[in-house]
């Protein structure tokens, strides 16, 4: 167990019982069996609180949203700041940077404004003519140009300064400067103002954006703490001399923060799909050979991975998983973040979550610790201040991609040198993070993230349960309180199976309920990865629950659920699929000597993609090849089995 010193004590207090549970089970929020059974027997009206110290509902949010405080978002015209972002996420109507009113179909439960730490807050300050900016001759010049109507020239001057590394050193918003301090303070103040425990959680956070040579190694850093602790530090950056592009240095910063303040932070990496093979290394990282220390440190700080977002979904890749008919989902595999280097097939293995989870099993054998034992979440990475990821209410990734008749037509990345071209229509209206927490507070949500009791969704707010244990039986799926059974007889998503009792194979209680205003469900699948005795890695996808009375064919594949989408009119119906799926599944190919992981994947019936809504509303014809339907999905954190 890696983090006993940090969390053992707190978790023990949270859990119903700390008695005689194997150490590893403590990380997962297991409920004492006896109390759970009692709770089931008792009529709820007599004592509704009994047995309810497990999470009873998932909270939905976004751990990755940029506002005008992010240098690039500002450059793209984002005018909404952190306050607007929180206001919007909690359900208020706001005006987008392109002047369009926008409101969520329902509020989110939490939000992390994660602005880029390098140059945080520069744009609002420049255009406000802050003294810090005007003190620099170049800053003064730009400001004067803007004030005298030469704004267009100022804009190009700023761009050129960046492109050519001639940006004045004194204007770099680096930690330690008063300007940077005030930007960070404004970020914290906004979170404090909108944090409303029990109702809406506004986390303090930022994004550390290592992007050397265009290879995406970005991480979001999320604080468990309030302003008193978070304001004792300033974010870690990339630009030297204050920062570094090496994740190891970020982890040192995180450790230093915890040591200094007694607080807690975690980091969530994203877009391995744009890292060109660098996100999940197996041999060396940042020029240094992988060792136990790397594995332990990474596993300690990086408890979650952002599996789906606007720039593609990174669960699995068809090249790596040729037998997985659902692997080709919102894939971005043409190159790195800036398209400067095209993708090679051999990079893929080190970019996608499933292969990383598999390689982690192997690394654990070699190094003693699994560096890639992460849970899964989704988030938006929108640069608009708007966590608007519903297909029929998608406000894009950047301001130029806010709703417009042109947004399906243009290129998002167009590198004429390498030929890497990604169209704007390929941007996904995805996703959100679902967190099984006891209550909607910074502490409770953060602790749930820390123990990986989370799942990713590509937008819909479906409820997904996933429990693993040795004793689940078919009738548990008929029970009225599957969660009580789940917690009492097993561990939830993100947990570890206890040692295998002789002769038993792991069983899983799985359940999913569709979004109350969303589409029915097609199927619930379990993805298993394992390491055999010869050191070879394997994976397999099992259909474990599905709608209707479909029967798997002779090839073992379940027939398609069908499709009700009218792409032209952007409509669909819930006449296929089921609102709820529930089952108990037993691994038919279990070998107790082989390490393995299992995670759930829930797939919705096809619905119109945002491109279909755009086509219908603006009366525009999509470019040939534009994806117009989407089978939305959820990915749970894995449950691991270690012999």
């Amino acid at each position: 167990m890696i983090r006993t010193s940090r969390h053992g004590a707190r978790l023990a207090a949270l859990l119903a019982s700390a008695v005689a549970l194997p150490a590893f089970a403590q990380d997962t929020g297991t409920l004492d069996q006896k109390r759970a059974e009692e709770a089931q027997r008792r009529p709820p009206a007599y004592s509704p609180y009994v047995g309810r110290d497990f999470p009873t509902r998932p909270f939905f949010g976004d751990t990755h949203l940029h506002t005008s405080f992010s240098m690039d978002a500002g450059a793209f015209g984002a005018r909404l700041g952190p306050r607007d972002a929180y206001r919007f996420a909690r359900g208020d109507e706001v005006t987008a940077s392109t002047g369009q009113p926008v409101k969520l179909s329902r509020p989110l439960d939490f939000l992390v404004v994660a602005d880029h730490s390098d140059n945080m807050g520069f744009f609002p300050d420049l255009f406000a003519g802050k003294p810090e900016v005007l003190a620099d001759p170049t800053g003064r010049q730009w400001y004067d140009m803007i004030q005298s109507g030469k704004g267009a020239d100022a804009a190009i001057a700023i761009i050129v300064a960046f492109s050519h590394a001639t940006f004045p050193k004194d204007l770099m918003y680096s930690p330690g400067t008063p300007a940077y301090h005030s930007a960070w303070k404004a970020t914290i103040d906004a979170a404090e103002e909108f944090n409303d425990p029990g109702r809406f959680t506004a986390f303090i956070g930022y994004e550390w954006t290592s992007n050397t040579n265009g290879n995406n190694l970005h991480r979001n850093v999320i604080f468990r703490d309030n302003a008193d602790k978070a304001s004792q530090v300033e974010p870690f950056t990339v630009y030297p001399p204050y920062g570094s592009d090496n994740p190891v240095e970020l982890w040192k910063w995180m450790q230093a923060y915890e040591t200094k303040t007694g607080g807690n932070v975690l980091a969530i990496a994203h877009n391995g799909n744009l890292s060109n093979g660098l996100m999940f290394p197996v041999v060396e990282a940042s020029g240094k050979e992988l060792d136990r220390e790397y594995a332990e440190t990474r596993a300690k700080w990086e408890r979650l991975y952002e599996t789906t977002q606007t720039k593609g979904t990174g669960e699995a890749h068809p090249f790596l998983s040729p037998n997985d008919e659902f692997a080709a989902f919102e894939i971005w595999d043409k190159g790195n973040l800036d398209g400067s280097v095209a993708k090679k097939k051999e990079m893929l293995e080190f970019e996608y979550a499933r292969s990383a989870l598999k390689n982690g099993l192997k690394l654990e054998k070699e190094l003693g610790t699994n560096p890639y034992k992460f849970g899964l979440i989704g988030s938006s990475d929108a640069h608009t201040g708007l966590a608007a990821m519903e297909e029929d209410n998608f406000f894009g990734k950047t301001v130029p991609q806010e709703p417009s008749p042109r947004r399906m037509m243009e290129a998002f990345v167009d590198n004429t040198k390498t030929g890497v071209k990604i169209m704007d229509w390929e941007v996904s209206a995805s996703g959100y993070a679902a967190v099984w927490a006891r209550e909607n507070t910074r502490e409770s949500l953060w602790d749930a993230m820390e123990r990986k009791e989370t799942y990713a969704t590509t937008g819909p707010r479906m409820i997904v349960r996933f429990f693993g244990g040795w004793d689940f039986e078919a009738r548990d799926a008929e029970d009225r309180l599957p969660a009580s059974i789940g917690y009492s007889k097993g561990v939830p998503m993100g947990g570890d199976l206890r040692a295998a009792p002789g002769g038993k194979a792991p069983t899983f209680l799985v359940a999913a309920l569709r979004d109350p205003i969303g589409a029915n469900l097609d199927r619930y699948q379990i993805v298993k990865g394992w390491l055999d005795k010869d050191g070879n890695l394997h994976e397999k996808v099992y259909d474990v629950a599905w709608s209707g009375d479909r029967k798997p064919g002779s090839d073992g594949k379940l027939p398609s659920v069908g499709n009700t989408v009218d792409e032209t009119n952007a409509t669909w119906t819930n006449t296929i699929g089921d609102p709820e799926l529930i089952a108990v599944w037993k691994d038919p190919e279990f070998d107790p000597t082989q390490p393995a992981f299992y995670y759930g994947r829930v797939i919705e019936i096809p619905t119109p993609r945002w491109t279909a809504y755009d086509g219908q509303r603006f009366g525009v014809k999509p470019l040939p090849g534009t994806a117009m339907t989407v089978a939305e999905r959820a990915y749970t954190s894995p449950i691991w089995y270690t012999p």
Partner: protein
Amino acid sequence: MGGYWQHLQAVSRLSMTAGLIFASSPAVLACGYHDDVSMARGMMNWVYPEALHVLGAISTAVAERRLAPPLSDKAPDLFGSRYRRTAEALERFGEALGESADRMPALSFSIVLLEPMLWTRYEAAGGRLRTQVHVTGPKAGDLVLVSGEAVIGGIVAGRLATGEAIERGLIRLYGSESQKAVFVGAFRSAGNARPDTIKPAAMSRAAQSVAGGETAMPLRSVPITALSIRQSTAFGADGTLACGPGHH
């Protein structure tokens, strides 16, 4: 980007800059899709507050079927024909303004079309408007109009009055209140199809095609500026500095 792009490069005083930003060292491109047209467009929102609300207004107008949507033009843009069509439309816009004014005010102004970030200056001289398409930017003190291709197309085609475009936020004006008043006063009716001034038959082909939305998509250009650019080799050895604002 095709021919239109090349054309712009050819006429651009700063084709060097453009070439550099788009096609030189990978380090420059470290910010990926943050091409400078998008950034220049984005910064309009700061320089001319809420300038990008024009985009939202266009979206609304297209959704309400008041403006033609852009066509997805798949044909290659040979020899910069797209640019020429837009340029012609802008010339025609100048003419339409001139025709609509009962008395030509002594008001020079600049317009920027947001999609290609193309600046055009209309200089009042001798009771006429002289059009200079593709200038580096507004002259100091100019009234600045922010709009989009479809809007100009609609006005030139006689389907949209300038005054209505302003009312609907399809054109935003930046300048002194008196400049704005003079502009609205003089040109509000430009674009109102008045049989005596605009006959469809007399409309230039360019105007028709622009109105039909054929200018379509990747109409891109760079805002050109007189800044002198030295080619720097210091693209940050690790590419980080070069990335600048480009992250995600």
